[in-house]
């Protein structure tokens, strides 16, 4: 989780990641953020994020992102 938070804070220092559970739906993360984040997550966790996983619900909160990462690591 610490690695993920570090990635997120570096990407968007202006966003409160701990409290916001609608990061995409509230507009805090835009498509540039998602694209950057996908690249960072693949590199940091050695996973592949498929097209079917690039959906708002997987990026709406730190917990949702972490859950996706864990699932993809197990696949």
């Amino acid at each position, binding site marked *: 989780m610490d690695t993920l938070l570090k990635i997120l804070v*570096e*990407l*968007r*220092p*202006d966003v409160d990641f701990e409290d916001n559970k609608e990061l995409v739906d*509230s*507009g*805090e993360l*835009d*498509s*540039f953020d998602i*694209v*950057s984040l*996908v*690249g960072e997550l*693949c590199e940091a966790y050695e996973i*592949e*994020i*498929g*097209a079917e*996983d*690039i959906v708002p619900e997987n990026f709406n909160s730190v917990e949702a992102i972490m859950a996706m990462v864990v699932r993809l690591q197990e696949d």
Partner: protein
Amino acid sequence: MIKQLIDGQDFWAEIVKRLSKGEKTNFFFSEEEVLQLVQKGKISRLDFDGGVYFFVTEENLYRLYYFLEKEKSPEVLPRLQQPIILEEVHLATKERIPSKDTWEKIGFQHYLERKRMYLMAKNIAFEEREPSFATEEILEEIFLLMNESFEPFSSALPTKEALLKDIQEQRVLISLKNQNLLGFLHFGDEKQGSMLWHIAVLPQARGLGVGEGLLQDWFLARKDIAKKFMLWVRTDNPPALRMYEKHGFLPDGRVAPVMIKTT
């Protein structure tokens, strides 16, 4: 060969697939925007080994978007009738890939660069002021000042009709002296906060605090709505950078270089 795109849904599926493969890109449109571009017949493509270019046609230019597979370089572009504008977004802390040199090798030149800044509303010391919104009567004057103040290729200048709509919907603030226009500030509301689109002050009124007053007016106008105030500023404009820094704006790390390839 350049081909026009005709199926928006197919195109969007291709975009998502390319993104999931980690291809490098400057294409950050939403699905809705992609469908509109295709529907209006404004987008065409050129495939090459290791990537694809998408051209969005505008009145006097082409905007270039690309997807590049890992380790692949941009291909030489065909000769087109209008200038080609390449606008990218990257993080200041990360290496820019493809590099500036790579684009220069295929004929692009540096045009300008912007960086994004933000200010949280909770950190603003609001002044007691009465913001003045533009009225339809000074549409022409604002439109003229806007077009004289900004470069034409990457400033997202609105059409006169779009500006009129923004005036009618109170998204243009003005500074007046003896009923004469000194400057204006044009903003938009986004999900995450309020975005400053354009601010300009007449040359003879600069240095008098007009810009700072307009900023304060903007804060007041969106005080109850926006949690955050955002803007893009040219990195070769030190007076503007100083003004925003003085008000507490901070860079969020996003940088947008613009390059141009002339015919």
